[in-house]
């Protein structure tokens, strides 16, 4: 299997652990990722509301960069995924906009026909294309005994794509059940992480973050799994401030789901980017799992 890969800016900086673990896991699973040559910003959360035409053109450029050898583009960052997917849909539905975007692309010697590239989120690709059987076959360190709280955030099921239930997604839950983890079915798995509200009104953001932490804590999760750099940042980096604000004492490690998937596949923890998170995940993982076989495959 061969996919075009769009890492996005977060994975080059704050979420390097995500990028590292994605590459390690997919290598282990035998999936080839071809990073787009000269990709640019996905517009993040805000660009669309600033200038729709420019945002669409900028994002469409990435779609246009996917060469003829690939018809699927995988994005691990939920925001990148949403923007790419949304742009493809927009271009197919709005001929006027498409005309203008075509013009912009043509200026750079590019062109894009809506629908040519299927934009996939990494989780969808792993769950659907690789599938239970292939993943299970590669598990060397089952996650037995580890209580994980999958956290989906808001972007992965939009625009409605049939991959998972938009109100109550479950695919990551299922995947970690394949890996042997005790998955906590806590009720806020698709609630808001606060997003950029941390920059606008901290009390509001902290309240949203607290709800997530509290619920996961009540369900006795050992670790929260993220698939979005923004979510991971908010829950991890602001955890201390949230504790300070509310007088709570949460100490929940927040990792990317691929990091823990990598552990199950027996990849050495440092190759998966562990250690970059502020609330350290390694101790709880090692203590819950049979520490000796962690990283056994490498």
């Amino acid at each position, binding site marked *: 299997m061969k996919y075009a890969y769009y890492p996005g800016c977060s994975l080059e900086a704050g979420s390097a652990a995500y990028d590292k673990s994605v590459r390690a896991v997919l290598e282990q699973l035998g999936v080839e990722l071809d990073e787009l040559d000269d990709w640019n910003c996905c517009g993040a959360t805000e660009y669309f509301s600033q200038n729709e035409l420019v945002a669409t053109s900028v994002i469409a450029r990435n779609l246009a960069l996917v060469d003829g050898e690939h018809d699927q583009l995988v994005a691990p960052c939920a925001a990148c995924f949403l923007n790419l997917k949304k742009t493809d849909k927009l271009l197919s539905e709005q001929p006027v906009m498409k005309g203008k975007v075509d013009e912009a692309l043509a200026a750079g010697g590019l062109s894009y026909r809506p629908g040519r590239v299927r934009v996939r989120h990494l989780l969808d690709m792993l769950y659907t294309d690789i599938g239970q059987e292939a993943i299970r076959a590669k598990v060397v360190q089952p996650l037995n005994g580890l209580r994980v709280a999958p956290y989906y955030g808001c972007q992965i099921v939009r625009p409605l794509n049939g991959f998972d*239930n938009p*109100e*109550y997604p*479950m695919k990551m839950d299922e995947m970690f059940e394949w890996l042997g983890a005790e998955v906590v*079915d*806590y*009720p*806020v798995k698709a*609630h808001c992480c606060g997003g950029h509200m941390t920059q606008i009104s901290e009390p509001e953001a902290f309240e949203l973050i607290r*709800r997530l932490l*509290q*619920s996961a804590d*009540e369900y006795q999760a050992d670790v929260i799994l993220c698939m979005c750099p923004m979510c991971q940042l908010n829950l991890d980096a602001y955890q201390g401030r949230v504790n300070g604000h509310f007088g709570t004492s949460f100490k929940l490690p927040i990792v990317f789901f691929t990091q823990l998937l990598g552990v199950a596949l027996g990849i050495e923890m440092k190759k998966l980017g562990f250690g970059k998170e502020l609330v350290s995940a390694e101790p709880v993982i090692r203590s819950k799992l049979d520490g000796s076989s962690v990283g056994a495959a490498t």
Partner: protein
Amino acid sequence: MAEKVGVYVCHCGSNIAGKVDVEDVAKWAGEKVKDVAVSRDYKFMCSSLGQKLVEDDIREQGLTRVVVAACSPHLHEKTFRRACSNAGLNPYLMEMTNIREHCSWVHKDRAAATEKARSLVSASIERVKFQEPLEPMFVDVNRATLVIGGGIAGLQATLELADAGYPVYLVERQPSIGGHMAQFDKTFPTLDCSACILTPKMSEVGQHENVTLLTYAELEEVSGSVGNFKVRIRQKARHVVFDDCTGCGICVEKCPRKVLDTEFEAGMGNRKAIYMPFPQAVPRVPVIDTESCIWFERQKCRACEKLCPTNAIDFDQEDEMIEIEVGNIIMATGWDAFDTRKIPQYGYGRLANVYTSLEFERLCNAAGPTNGKIVLRDGKTEPKSVAIVHCVGSRDERHNPYCSGICCMASLKLGHLVLEKTDAEVYSFYIDMRTNQKNYEEFYQRLLGEGMRFVRGKVAEVTDAARKPSEQGKLIVQCEDTLVGRQQRFPVDMVILMGAIEPQVDAREMGLKCGISCSMEGWYTERHPKLDPVATMTDGIFVAGACQGPKDIPASVAQGAAAAARVAGMITKGKVMIEPIVASIDEEGCSGCRICNNLCPYNAIEYDAEAKVSRVITALCKGCGTCVSACPAGAIRGAHFSDRQIFAEIQGALWDAWQPRGGASEEAEAVPVSAP
């Protein structure tokens, strides 16, 4: 001799005339189309004056063919056939042109609609010239009726017919008749005890001399047609000999295997491996559930057999096929409940104290697992607050777009029961309150008075994620209260989900067996939504109750009675007219190639090996015409839909496109051949 065709173009008030220039069409037909002797337009052709117009012209002008351009033939073909008959013209020499449903109602442009109307009229004129007089056929109607489904609609239909003196077979797939109504405690808006009004009807059916009750039985196959259906029914093995059982219940009492009853008790209570679904079951003959019976599992036990005073237990009993003959069939197969797990954010199956409405019906039923005590899943705690969520899977494009109709009233009823039996607060989360039958709105007002709280808004989620101490340990219903315009959180102890009413999962399959169709959702399609609500497109098959669409008890009963009345009418008349639209084989043209032989699903074509020809058995033919178009020798003729008629219709429809084929005729004269 050329035919004299009369053409009548209806205005239908402005229904047709508003979009089609009817005067112009009539004038055009009269002046330009060959063989048209009379062409008129008239305000309402279906009025008695309109019909008289046709009758008078037939008599006075000697019309030999009639074309009425008006609405769909499915509405008024009979009307105008009768008019022709009255005036002495064979009714099959009349053709209707549909210029309303197929034209004026669906096209915006007046010129285009008029042009189309002209083509359709032209097609009918050309066709009608080739139509032939036909005589309708009559068959005797078997006096017995099959009712499928022993819920309240089926029971009502059964009793109406049986009381009128006609034999009825009632088939029910469950071990007892009664249907969903037997599960309920009370009925809205009167708060009658459901069992009290249902069980008398059940026992009446059970004892009625005209009723043959077949419970724990499935419809296998239906053949034949109106008046004379042959039906095959699978009597599933009860493992209890029906005639020997006295219904004493010792077997049930002594059976050591308890299982969760997911059917009658909706998973709220248990039953035994040998069981009657509920105490008032009719018939009072238990069945053995072979999937949980210890004997069937590991060849041990046989306690029931040992203890049965009449030796009625038979472990070797097998399914049995029963063949019956009936004149009519009433489908009353009812509904199924929406699987509330499909809306995971409401927490059913994940959060213990989220209930489905059927579960709750059992919970507050005096004969239910808690003897009617409303308690949480722990079996002891009475809830202090209850939320009732409307439209779970209804009015939701992701599930069912339709309104289930009965849930608003059902939730008022459940709310009342909670208020009556507990001290709990009751919240009702609704989109719109729909209480539009007799005494329904009054019941709503009564509940308002009783203190039930109403929140207008679609519930976003039901969660146990508490945000403040007052929410700890509660189920929180998150909802935008659209009257207040604010997101609200309601911590409650219990949530009841009013799941949608859905068609039975096998409704489509059952419909196919009887030859009736379903809507996209799976509700049986009635012949006409307003004017023929219990008949179907298939003569002799009727529908009653919720299998036709969500319905409450009064409506189901009314439909059961209506269907019975229709059937009784057929039986009383004794004969049913069958359209003479059948196929026939010209034996001279038939070479006995046998292509047609297995094309008929009704086996109406037989092969005479001696004469080497195939023949149509007219009584079995339903007139689809498939064999007609399959005959390679062109030797099969379809009455009223013959090749000639259809070719003429095609030619007429394309009157403005068609030009005589080049070649023969006129042109032969046009080019001079040199003289000698």
